[in-house]
């Protein structure tokens, strides 16, 4: 918007007192500096205290200032804007901090060898020394296999169940209401319980030596299916009823309408939801070490024997360090770093695929 050069005389109540435009950032910086200075003066600068005090004092100052110069309504508006922005920055802080911690600590160990090598040990018979070689390939492979199988099972089941809920079942259908409710309950299953369940199930089926990547996949399925259903449901509901009717009116059977029109239109959103679900379970620790046990060895057979994954590697390396504690912790951060990288890669792939599938208007 541009202001005209001639200032309007204002008998009409269009204008009111206004704080200058730059007041918010200026005041914020001012408050922050002053508080930092005060903190240094009285010894002890502390990041958390600084942030909290800055936020509180800024909000009070802008509120009071605006109430005096402008009016009460504007003051409230400015305070809320401040609060909302603060909430956002507050949330950004842990993200940046987490990522920074993971990246800085992870990059210290991660190199091509770490990624492509199976972690292990070599023994020198002369000195009796066992030298650990860092490597995460066994965990990367395990993560991909276990999560991959979980996704292969969960995605069809979840998507189809969502199709049932949205496309077939009427709102009054007791089955639909039960299932929606159960899906909500399932999202609340503690992950460790899912692990125990899967392991017990497999002990029943294959006998005591039930540790396998596959049983861990089943545990992840229990956690993943409800997430897939929920997000798919949301996405299917976003597909305008118009499109279903258009397709049906062309004499297209219901199943073809659902598959080729409804699912196709919602595909991009469904993919995003699925990837979020995968990202959510790929970092699970407790169910995996219960169902797939732990090993340092490479195992690519999901149906037999313990399997290592990145989160379990991070957890065990941190919780049960070797003699060289620092090296173990470095490994833990390396695994955590790879895990985050994996999640980011999933996300990127999903973005790209989703963009390819997204409805276009141009």
């Amino acid at each position, binding site marked *: 918007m541009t202001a005209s050069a001639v200032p309007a005389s204002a008998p009409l109540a269009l204008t009111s007192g206004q704080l200058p435009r730059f007041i918010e950032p200026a005041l914020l910086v001012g408050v922050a500096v002053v508080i930092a200075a005060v903190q240094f003066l009285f010894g002890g600068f502390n990041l958390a205290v600084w942030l909290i005090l800055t936020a509180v004092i800024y909000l009070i100052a802008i509120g009071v200032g605006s109430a005096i110069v402008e009016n009460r309504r504007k003051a*409230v508006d400015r305070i809320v804007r401040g609060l909302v922005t603060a909430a956002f920055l507050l949330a950004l802080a842990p993200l940046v901090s987490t990522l920074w911690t993971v990246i800085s600590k992870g990059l210290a160990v991660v190199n091509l060898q770490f990624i492509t090598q199976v972690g292990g040990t070599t023994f020198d018979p002369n000195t009796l020394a066992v030298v650990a070689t860092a490597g995460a390939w066994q965990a990367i492979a395990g993560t991909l296999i276990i999560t991959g199988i979980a996704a292969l099972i969960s995605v069809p089941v979840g998507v189809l169940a969502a199709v049932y809920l949205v496309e077939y079942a009427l709102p009054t259908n007791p089955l639909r209401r039960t299932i929606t409710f159960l899906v909500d309950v399932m999202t609340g299953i503690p992950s460790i319980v899912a692990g125990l369940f899967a392991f017990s199930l497999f002990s029943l089926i294959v006998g005591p030596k039930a540790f396998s990547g596959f049983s861990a996949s089943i545990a992840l399925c229990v956690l993943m299916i409800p997430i897939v259903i929920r997000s798919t449901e949301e996405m299917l509901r976003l597909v305008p009823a118009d499109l279903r009717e258009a397709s049906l009116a062309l004499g297209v059977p219901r*199943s073809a309408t659902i598959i080729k029109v409804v699912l196709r239109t919602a595909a991009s959103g469904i993919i995003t939801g699925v990837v*979020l679900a995968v990202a959510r379970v790929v970092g699970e620790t407790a169910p995996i070490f219960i169902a797939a046990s732990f090993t340092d060895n490479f195992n690519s057979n999901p149906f037999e024997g313990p399997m290592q994954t990145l989160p379990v590697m991070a957890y065990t390396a941190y919780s049960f360090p070797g003699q060289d504690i620092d090296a173990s912790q470095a490994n833990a951060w390396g695994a955590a770093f790879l895990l985050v990288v994996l999640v980011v890669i999933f996300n990127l792939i999903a973005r790209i695929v989703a963009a390819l599938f997204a409805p276009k208007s141009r």
Partner: protein
Amino acid sequence: MTDTVSDAATDAATPSTPKASIVGKRRVGDTVFLGLSTTAAVSIMVILAGVAIFLIIRGLPAITANWSEGDLAGYQNRNWSSFWEYVGPLLFGSIWAALIAMVIGTPVAIGIALFISHYAPRRLAGALGYVVDLLAAVPSIVFGLWGIIVMRPLLLPVSQFLNEYLGWIPLFQGPVSTTGSTMFTGGVVLAVMILPIVTSITREIFLQTPRLHEEAALALGATRWEMIRLAVFPYARSGMVSATLLGLGRALGETMAIALIISPSLIYSVLLLTDGYNSQTIAANIALNFPIATDLQRSALIGTGLMLFVVSLAVNMLARYIISATGPGAKGRKRGKRS
């Protein structure tokens, strides 16, 4: 399946004569697809029933056992008279920790969602949404490790501060922890973990607020905040409730981060800043004690898992009730992308 919308197609011949052109035989594709999706939906019940049955079968021995003898006598160094006495403080701890996380996390999450949907410049908003989604994807083990090395030391002086100036509030009583393994730290880390879930759901709902209603408010001379109060919040209320409860579900079930961060005790305590008086949560207690437990002790732990399951069931029922009771916002929510 009864009560489903489906095209009733019945037997007959091929569309050769005009007469028969609208007469068709049963459509295999439709039947198969309906069958598949019904099966998928029903399998949810099977899985959940499986989990519930598993919990009950494995948990029952300890729930009915005599806690004054055998492996359960003096379990975890306390003389419990029964399973219920044992699970009590754990249930309390789970709910308490989740509540703290909600109290810290929900307002922030809603703030972020509002920032992204209504305050940030449109172009920035997409990127910001992505960033928050990324937070959702950070594995909980990473949050656990991060909590230990970053948050624990960072929050120590804050604890000190709170205790010094607000110590008269029972929550902030001392002795203040020197290691940082407090309910406060745990609550903050949990809050960070539930942020993305609550944010992404509320953000979606905020974005779906019909533009019509937003513009109606603005055209009445509302400030942005007043517009949010008039148009956005009423519309999103039920969604906010369900998002919050989803977050609560996650907070209740979170295991590793809590197990790694908090210094737990099997007591009823609301203190936030101490080492020795943090109520233990069910999930963390399972994670901590399952490895060392004997069969009957495992059964006791699984019994506590069953209780957690029951709580999340109750929470969800409550959520449904609230959503259905909060009126038009719940029913009148038409989902349509705004352009």
